[in-house]
């Protein structure tokens, strides 16, 4: 199978969905003339023009707010946030408007909206350009949260998100954009709400998503040399969460590490760990261990950044703690 980058995979998803449905359009800062700051929209206006690939002022509130209004009136907007950190400038629009509208209006409205949010740590981007904020939105009923780890999943899930009639937050890790992986030429979708076992194993389950999937796979490779087989479960979407696949794995391995790049405290990992404790306590042979960024803002200087952000080493250590 051919290999393309994560970024190209999302670009193909956009182009295919825009071709398929004339109501799909994308708006955001620096996306049309610049092609996106990570090149993830490059060439899109050549085919679809500068109205359907709409450069906006620096107005995150208006980008998401307008996307909500457009979605309510027959369009299927994709709103790009530049950096996930900037969703903070559109919190009312996401948490109070988009998440509530279908429900509080009693199902009169549908809100086919995708908010794309490039997140995560890359190249000393420091405190305001490095965060992983997905847990905030897991806490707000009414949104779907998609957070892929591979080019294959990125494409299939973005297409599914665009076709979904509900508001979807699509978190894409900045350090994954350049990563290559197999993506078929023919069309496919990845369903929202299905986890994927990226590596089978019998000894420990690592429940993870986004870039940490790759760090978990590297850790599993190392640990396998010592005879420890880690099963890596990539959640792919946090809402809805495929807890069945997680529990199935936990019942087999009886030991769990939950890993994400977001801060440990109050992270999605806490929800996952609590759910495992509620649903599979009797199967557990050890406490659930969480791996996440230490609870400080992401610092700038490379040694500081490296000190707080978990990588392969932290997952290996977490696994060794419980085997």
């Amino acid at each position: 199978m051919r290999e393309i980058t994560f970024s190209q995979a999302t670009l193909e998803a956009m182009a295919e969905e825009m071709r398929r449905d004339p109501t799909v359009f994308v708006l955001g800062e620096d996306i049309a003339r610049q092609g996106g700051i990570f090149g993830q929209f490059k060439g899109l206006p050549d085919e679809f023009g500068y109205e359907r690939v709409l450069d906006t002022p620096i107005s995150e509130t208006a980008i998401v707010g307008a996307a909500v209004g457009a979605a309510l009136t027959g369009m299927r907007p994709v709103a790009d946030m530049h950096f996930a950190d900037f969703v903070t400038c559109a919190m009312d629009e996401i948490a109070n408007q988009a998440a509530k509208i279908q429900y509080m209006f009693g199902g009169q409205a549908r809100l086919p909206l995708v908010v794309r949010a490039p997140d995560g740590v890359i190249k000393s981007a420091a405190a305001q350009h490095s965060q992983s904020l997905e847990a905030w939105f897991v806490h707000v009923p009414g949104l779907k949260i998609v957070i892929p780890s591979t080019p294959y999943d990125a494409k299939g899930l973005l297409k599914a998100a665009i076709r979904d009639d509900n508001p979807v937050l699509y978190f894409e890790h900045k350090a994954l954009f350049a990563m290559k992986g197999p993506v078929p030429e023919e069309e496919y979708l990845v369903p929202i709400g299905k986890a994927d076992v990226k590596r089978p194993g019998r000894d420990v389950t690592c429940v993870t998503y986004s870039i940490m999937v790759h760090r978990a796979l590297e850790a599993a490779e190392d640990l396998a040399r010592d005879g420890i087989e880690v099963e890596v479960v990539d959640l792919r979407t946090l809402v809805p969460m495929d807890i069945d696949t997680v529990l199935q794995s936990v019942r087999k391995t009886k030991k769990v590490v939950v890993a994400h790049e977001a801060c440990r405290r109050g992270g999605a990992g806490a929800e996952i760990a609590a759910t495992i404790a509620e649903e599979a306590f009797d199967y557990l042979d050890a406490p659930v261990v969480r791996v996440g960024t230490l609870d400080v803002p992401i610092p700038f200087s490379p040694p500081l950044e490296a000190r707080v952000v978990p990588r392969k080493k932290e997952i290996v250590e977490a696994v060794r703690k419980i085997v």
Partner: protein
Amino acid sequence: MPDRNTLVHIYTTMVRIRTFEEKVEELFLAGKIPGFVHLYIGEEAVASGVCASLEHSDYIVSTHRGHGHCIAKGASPRRMMAEILGKSSGYCKGKGGSMHIADFSVGMLGANGVVGGGFNIAVGAALSAKMRRSGQVAVCFFGDGASNRGTFHEALNMASVFDLPCVFVCEHNQYASTTPATYSVSVRDVADRAVGYGIPGVTVDGNDVLAVYEAAREAIDRARRGGGPTLLEAKTYRIKGHFVGDPEKYRDRSEVERWKAKCPILRFEERLLAEGVLADAEMEAIKAAARREILEAVSFAEESPYPDPDDAFSDLYVSDAQGEGCGR
């Protein structure tokens, strides 16, 4: 002057809103309404004057004080009243209440519990109308208080940059909850802020329904022709408290009485009489019909059942999503 049909329609709308609101106040004070309600009494000329120039397919975005906008855009008082009482026959099946009434079938895209939360939704509806070449216009109602939100700035700038068919209607009712506009708004006329966005800004007497009508018609026509957005400010007054039960310690009764004398409905009645459009008896008949309509709405609402408690779990997600692979 608009034609007689339009004048009678505008007057009838104002009377229906007033009658509805007086009944809501009565029901609230009788303990029949959960939560809290914000009344539109005194501001009827704005919604009635603006919506008279809108097509059925045009959009409006409303506020926490939204009952008047709903009625003026054509929503049903029965289903509004049922929603306000928390009944399953309400517009939102009892999930929204007074502050979240919407009627998508008449282009009423929702009231909003967040002050200033509607600006950009209106911008999006206008963007969508422009992209679909539908000829629709979006009107955003908001107050003097909301004009201090950052959302106002982003919305007006974006609407101007993209020449969107959007009319921003400021209902300047003098108070943001308990805070007077003289204290919190940097300019005397909110419409002056239009200069910052390169769009027309117009201030009218918001208790003179024909002044509102004329100014709104011009703005709506301009938007529909592709002439871009307008900031229209209607100077009016909230006769009742911020919410029913507001002790109103922030204003003198004499001020309220002065504004009551400028009641937009009384003023319009004088005008209609003077111009020979409607006689006293005809106006009485319109009021009697409004009373009947609202009483019937109350009966409908009171007789409607409350939602089943398990209905709390429906409508969170749309399940009949298009295409394969969609989340459930």
